[in-house]
């Protein structure tokens, strides 16, 4: 009797995630296709766009740098929403979402830093300066890594969930700092020219490819995110199954010795 109720509890626990896995299975290939298409189109358009008279060929880095930078911040935003999901609605998938998003966000942030400094070398003559924008992105990277370390430090996902969610929420204070750092401190890095209240100031021939590739990378993120979430759900399920199996094996080996 107790055995069946054990299984039932696990089943109810995973009922929702099971539906999610089905959904993810259906969505991931489509999303992957769309993101591949968008990225290809965006980058192709980007490479055929006029070169900047000042920056020359290096301006093409923009089509990956800027999407990476946007995504670096957006991913934390997604995690913030998930954190609310964990803390307020206690949705089991919300925690999975944070766990899956953190490494992806860290990679995007690292790529933004990398492409930025590759771009910075010809433009500013140095790989790295401690300007407000750059430093705040660097801090964002540290926050991502700290979050990953925190979630990995707990041996049980349930225990990590709440801690991670709280950290994400507190950390989201940093997002506006990154976004507006260029306006608050005068820096080397250029101020926002696309996402601003009074409309974009960038030339449309550059803007369109940028937007398309940004949309492509955003799709790419959701593809990766869904896939990673699916893996995480599987991982947890396998862990639970392994525990049950271990317990049963253990019983058999005891050979009916009375407890």
């Amino acid at each position, binding site marked *: *009797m*107790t*055995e069946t*109720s*054990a299984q039932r*509890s696990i089943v109810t626990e995973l009922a929702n995630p099971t539906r999610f896995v089905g959904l993810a299975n259906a969505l991931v290939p489509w999303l992957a296709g769309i993101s591949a298409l968008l990225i290809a189109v965006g980058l192709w358009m980007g490479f055929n766009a006029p070169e900047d008279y000042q920056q020359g060929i290096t301006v093409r880095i923009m089509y990956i740098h800027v999407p990476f930078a946007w995504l670096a911040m957006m991913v934390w935003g997604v995690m913030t929403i998930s954190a609310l999901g964990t803390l307020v609605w206690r949705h089991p998938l919300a925690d999975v979402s944070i766990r899956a998003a953190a490494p992806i966000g860290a990679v995007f942030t690292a790529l933004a830093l990398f492409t930025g400094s590759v771009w910075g070398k010809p433009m500013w003559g140095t790989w790295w300066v401690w300007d407000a924008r750059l430093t705040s992105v660097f801090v964002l990277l540290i926050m991502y890594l700290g979050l990953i370390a925190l979630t990995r430090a707990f*041996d*049980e996902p*349930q225990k990590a969930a709440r801690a991670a969610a709280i950290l994400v929420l507190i950390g989201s204070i940093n997002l506006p700092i990154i976004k507006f750092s260029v306006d608050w401190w005068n820096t080397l890095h250029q101020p926002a020219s696309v996402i601003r209240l009074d409309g974009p100031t960038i030339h449309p021939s550059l803007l369109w490819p940028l937007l398309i590739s940004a949309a492509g990378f955003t799709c790419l993120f959701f593809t990766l995110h869904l896939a990673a979430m699916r893996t995480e759900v599987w991982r947890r399920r396998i*862990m*639970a199954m392994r*525990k049950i199996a271990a*317990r049963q094996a253990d*019983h058999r080996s005891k050979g009916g010795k009375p*407890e």
Partner: protein
Amino acid sequence: MQLIAESLAAERSGELVFSDISFSLDKGDGLIITGPNGAGKSTLLRVIAGLLPSLGGSLEFESGDSWTGLADACHYLGHKNAMKDALSVRENLTFWQAFYGPPHMTIDDALNYVGLQSTADLPFGYLSTGQRRRISIAKLLINYRPVWLLDEPTAGLDADSEQVVSHLLREHLDDGDIAIVATHLPLGLEGLKELKLELHP
């Protein structure tokens, strides 16, 4: 006063420890939880105290008085003593007395009850294992709480002190209060309900 638990269940690190535990305690009822090591006695007490979530079921507490809930109306005595080694016994108890609100008994009287008045000004860290446990038991007395949740209160106590604890429990129950005690050792009390937990397969 009434404490009704219905089909409680708890898991630890993803494994069900117990399920479908129900009991109901009225004024003056005591419940003894027994079972082998790892059966979930401490876990059950922690669930009742609200330190761990129950996987299902319900726990209802009604008190005639102004207690806002079970957590508010209970003394929880865990395996650990919740005392600081560096502070003296009196300082430790004074702190908990202030923390728990209106006092019920003076610290000296409580220490007297457990027979350790002479240690009042020693640092807690200087006491022997059994003496420490007895100080924790004195802590139950300095503030009044109608519900006691005790996790092996007599572990490490000598025979005399075990008697004292039994006596104390008896008095508590006779006053119409409730106690839930997890223990391996017989307490020498009669008329208590008993809940036997089994090792989960």
